[in-house]
């Protein structure tokens, strides 16, 4: 029987974005990463070619994160004491990108200084060849001080600087423009808020192909359905031709999943939750793959085992079958 498969013919496409710069382009990366460029909903290979695969970014900290789940610290072992060594280990596990998430405090408990932030960034850049995302500690004044220092120090590397939010984006965008970097624009699970922030950031003069949007998500069991649907709606809007939604998307399933009780806590929980390690990894993997299938271009992960499983899933999803 001949069947006429209904195919969507979309007007719009997601922008293609390049992260990182090699020595030919004024940076020091061994390779760059291209994301975006889709003209279909996720993995609809039968409708159109999918130019770039979603990528896995691995989150590391500038020093040992004592508030992380013991399962993560056990898995990474001593590399967590040095950002350069940690980044190298992540790269060897298959990280397409590294996310260096700076802490609010330095090793001695002091507020992090620009010098400490630069030194952590430098050591990651020196030990790895993949492009880098650097995120401030999430406190407005501290973020601006450290991100500006890093942006100037690494001019031309095409780093991704995060996080721009509606209450703090001007300083980060300005330094990204001046020093040839990209930014992450984060909003709270809402299509219109996402569009609005993209407009504000691009109005400052930063080209749209240097903005990655983070629509945020909840973890599995903690609001993932909102993240899932907001991402599907943003991607549909992009394909329908809405310019301000045509940006690749980054989400942080690792961060979200590892703050849930299901992943963080191993004792005193219901027996029906099952084995702690298996459950925690499933929590991260299910959160990540659900979001990849709703349109994520970059997923930021934490556990080595999750990185492996999610990368395999992406390989399968990018297989073009008959």
């Amino acid at each position, binding site marked *: 029987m001949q069947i006429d498969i209904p195919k969507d013919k979309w007007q719009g496409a997601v922008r293609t974005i390049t992260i990182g710069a090699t020595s030919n382009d004024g940076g020091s990366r061994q390779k760059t990463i291209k994301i975006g460029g889709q003209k279909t909903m996720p993995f609809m290979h039968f409708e159109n070619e999918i130019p770039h695969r979603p990528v896995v970014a691995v989150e590391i900290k500038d020093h040992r994160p004592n508030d992380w789940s013991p399962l993560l610290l056990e898995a990474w072992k001593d590399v967590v004491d040095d950002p350069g060594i940690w980044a190298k280990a992540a790269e060897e596990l298959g990280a397409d990108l590294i996310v260096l998430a700076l802490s609010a405090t330095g090793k001695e408990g002091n507020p992090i200084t620009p010098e400490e932030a630069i030194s952590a960034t430098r050591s990651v850049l020196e030990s790895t060849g993949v492009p880098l995302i650097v995120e401030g500690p999430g406190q407005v004044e501290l973020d601006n001080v450290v991100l500006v220092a890093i942006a100037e120090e690494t001019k031309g590397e095409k780093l991704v600087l995060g996080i721009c939010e509606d209450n703090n984006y001007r300083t980060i965008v300005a330094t990204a423009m001046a020093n040839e970097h990209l930014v992450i624009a984060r909003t709270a699970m809402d299509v219109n808020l996402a569009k609005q922030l993209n407009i504000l950031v691009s109005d400052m003069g930063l080209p749209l192909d240097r903005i990655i949007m983070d629509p945020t998500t909840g973890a599995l069991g903690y609001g993932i359905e909102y993240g899932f649907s907001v991402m599907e709606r943003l991607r549909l809007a992009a394909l329908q031709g809405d310019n301000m939604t045509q940006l690749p998307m980054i989400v942080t399933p690792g961060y979200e999943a590892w703050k849930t*009780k299901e992943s963080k806590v191993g004792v005193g929980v219901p027996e029906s939750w099952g084995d702690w390690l298996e459950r925690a990894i499933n929590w991260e993997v299910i959160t990540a793959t659900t979001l990849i299938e709703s349109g994520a271009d970059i997923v930021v992960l934490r556990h080595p085992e999750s990185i492996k499983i999610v990368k395999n899933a992406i390989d399968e999803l990018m297989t073009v079958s008959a």
Partner: protein
Amino acid sequence: MALSGIQIYKLLPQTNCKECGYPTCLAFAMKLAAKQVELTSCPYVSEESKVQLEESSAPPIRLITIKSGHHELKVGNEVVLFRHEKTFLNKPGLFITVDDNLSNDQLMEIVKQVDSYKVNYVGIELEVDGFAVLSKTDDEKKFCEVISTIRNVSQKPLIFISKNPKIIEAGLEIISNEVCMISSANSTNWEEMAALAKTHKAVLVVETETIEQMAELTEKIKATGVEDIVLAISASDLSSNLSQQTKIRKLALKNNFKPLGYPTIVYASSVTTATQAITKYAGFLVLEKFSPALVYPLLVLRQNIYTDPQKPIQVQPGVYEINNPKPEDPVLITTNFSITYFSVANEVEGSGLPAWLVVADAEGMSVLTAWAAGKFDAERIAKSIKGFNIAEKVTRKRMVLPGHVAVLSGELEAELPDWEIRVGPREAVDIPKYLKQAI
């Protein structure tokens, strides 16, 4: 796809006899299209038109029911491709495979575990739907022994898996008063399988390599009088499964293509296959083995994805007393989004420390979302505090704000001058530590 009023009008007698209660046939057709009247109101509609109209009003994806004991599982009837367009309606059934190669002890252990498995998620009890009995040995006696063992322990619905009609028949013979599912009919055994499905009123899984073969086979099977069909298309990887499932859903919904207008079934051996089955359109999900550490997150995912996006689950705003608080105990405030409430309430309860939990009406949004949308600001919080008269219950007016809205503490001090405003942790999981150390 439902017919439009004009398409329906063309199938009506067009005599404007008014006996249906409407002034014209067109008016009646419009009401039919809107599903506000029944076709039976028209005494003169031809048999031929009746058949066409009934077919067009059938749901694009057939509703399939399997049941046993007091269990009833309904799957299908879906109407959208994306959950935000309306909602996903009937949660995919989750089944655990047991095979006839297991020792009796192993079998008993698994069946008991699965049957009694219950897990609480935001106040809802989640459980596994049933068992998929797999004939590995191709021995009728062994197959029947497994079924009897399951039925001694559990009344949950069953799927029988074998390509051999004799095995399936033996299984069907020993059960009674239940609708089970048999898997599967293919291009070689379909006549015998269809006959079994018809005789025993079982739901029939049809398995092929491609959707073209599937459409041909379901038509042949339907012609024998079997209507309760479930589709199993072989997929070698996540990509082909996703495109097959999407094509089937699109053909059913957009083209009203009847040969594929049935729910699908996915057999999963990995966490990623199972995840995709739940988010992308499977009607039944059969897991290779039982592990609570996988079943729990999958049940939660199913619950999340099948939540009606128009109706976030809310809890009643008000004052909740946790661990018998006394007048000197702290007042915590949060929003009435169910997940937010349950996260906070569970943590406070787990800490063993008493507290008054004030749940403000934030239109069912979480703390950050509600704050961003202006539904959880100082004014609203002050209104809740005053409205619920919490001040009369406590001697020490001390309120703990969620860490995510620390910025509100200044405004709140102005709104509630006689209260001491404290900033709590951002995440619920850190509440016990906070209560122990800071309060």
